[in-house]
């Protein structure tokens, strides 16, 4: 008897989200198949995209081998952002670490001006992450949104605690939002429902929090997988958004990554590859070599 492979067709479609504008724009999401299920009916019009992360200050605790590719530009975020483009990135992700009250508590105006300068200096879209301090971010991110009016940056994290203020500024100034919740699908959906009451859902990207290999990655994996299943299979409108996996920072915190370069590259590469298999649409890494390692692995047919 001849074997016939089953072919599935699903009802849900992940919203296609555009970040950036004009020639500096990028589309993510849009798939109606589960990750890499190219044998099923449907398609993924936008393959996974990659960004490298930069920080708005001299990184305090990076090991030598992580600093190395950017040694000469690491004290100048504008140049650092441009350097990222040498590594064929689809986007650059700026982490406004200095604004954290526990770090330098740098003012919102300064962060906003720097963000604009970086966004103007590169030819790819810019992702901007605030410090994660819900109170300070409610001050910094709206200012960033305002100063970068109309550039359609991808801005976050929009949290349960500050989604009204931060979400409104992101919307009013023509940007796209990263809705972040702490590794819990029910909370993730709740935030999207609440945000979605005034914010267009086709401008929301989900950040479920990405943990590193050995530090809870399997939780992130299961969650991303489940968000995709609930969206694509059961057509839950509030989970049909693309997913950003901001994993670089988490990976380079691992002592295994700090110990030596090869281990670090593999740590970040394996985490990226795993979360990509789970269904992440946009991945933020730190090291150019783990980025190329991940891309090479993907391209091997």
């Amino acid at each position: 008897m001849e074997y016939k492979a089953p072919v599935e067709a699903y009802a849900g479609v992940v919203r296609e989200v555009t970040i950036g504008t004009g020639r500096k724009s990028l589309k993510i999401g849009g798939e109606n198949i589960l990750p890499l299920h190219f044998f099923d009916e449907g398609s993924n019009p936008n393959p996974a995209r990659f960004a490298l992360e930069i920080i708005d200050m001299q990184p305090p605790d990076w090991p030598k081998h992580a600093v190395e590719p950017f040694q000469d530009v690491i004290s100048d975020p504008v140049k650092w952002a441009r350097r990222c483009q040498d590594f064929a990135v689809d986007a650059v992700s700026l982490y406004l670490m200095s604004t954290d009250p526990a770090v330098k508590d740098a003012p919102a105006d300064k962060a906003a001006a720097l963000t604009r300068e970086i966004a103007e200096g590169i030819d790819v879209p810019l992702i901007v992450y605030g410090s994660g301090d819900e109170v300070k971010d409610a001050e910094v991110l709206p200012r960033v949104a305002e100063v970068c009016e109309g550039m359609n940056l991808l801005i976050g994290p929009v949290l349960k605690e500050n989604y009204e203020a931060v979400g409104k500024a992101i919307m009013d100034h023509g940007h796209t939002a990263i809705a972040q919740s702490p590794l819990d699908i029910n909370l993730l959906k709740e935030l999207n429902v609440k945000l979605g009451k005034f914010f267009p859902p086709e401008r929301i990207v989900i950040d479920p929090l990405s943990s590193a290999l050995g530090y809870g990655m399997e939780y992130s994996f299961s969650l991303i997988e489940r968000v995709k299943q609930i969206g694509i299979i059961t057509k839950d409108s509030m989970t049909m958004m693309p997913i950003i996996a901001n994993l670089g920072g988490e990976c380079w915190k691992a002592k295994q990554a700090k110990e030596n370069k090869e281990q670090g590259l593999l740590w970040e590469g394996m985490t990226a590859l795993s979360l990509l298999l789970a269904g992440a649409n946009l991945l933020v890494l730190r090291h150019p070599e783990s980025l190329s390692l991940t891309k090479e692995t993907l391209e091997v047919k």
Partner: protein
Amino acid sequence: MKKEPEENMQWLVDVTQDAVDVPLCIDTMNPVAMEAGLKACRKRPLLNSASGKSDSKEQMLPLAKKYDCDVVISVMTDKGMPPDVDSKIESIMDTVAYANDMGIPNQDIWVDPILLPVSTAGEGQRFAVVCLEFMNILDDVLPEIKSTVGLSNVSNGVPAELRPHLNRTYLVMLERNGLYSAIADPLDKELMGLIGGEMPGVVELIHKVMDGEDIDVSGLAQKESEYVKTARVLMGETLYSDAWLES
């Protein structure tokens, strides 16, 4: 209670039966307190609860026999909480057979499937569906058996003002599948009205959701649409979030 379990339980039973003229259900894990309570009851009490755990089989079930009372038996075993319908049925059949051998008949046994919070990420909604299925087949495998649930467990962890929605809807669903009784809040007028047949339209809508009918909530009154949305969450059809009534 820990220091003088017998005296305290006896006092509690006495003041309660002085105030109300109905049988009592005594809920304690302490067998000494349980015995004191059963002894003090004027009407035939309900022992809550025994389970398939060995200490419960050895200490609680004999009390039910000794005082000739009804007994709640939960699906719990020494291995913990059985995770799916088959293992729940298997465990309750084992424990009920054990009780039958001691001389406790099915009609004196109230089975508790143990409800878990629906809001628990990942598993909560599956548990809600499992308990519905369990109730549906219980009578087939154990004829004449009674049943009960601690209803408000299903809404544990949910914002307080939203909990009644889950409690009410789930009770209608469980009742349809054969639930005999529930430990619930009798001061919740809407809950009592629903069960008392005062809201037949809502009950019918909930049943339709259970049958997989596609209901257009936009054509419904707000209250009806809330019941439909809640039933869909409890059937595992829509992913739970605290904002389930809002989407």
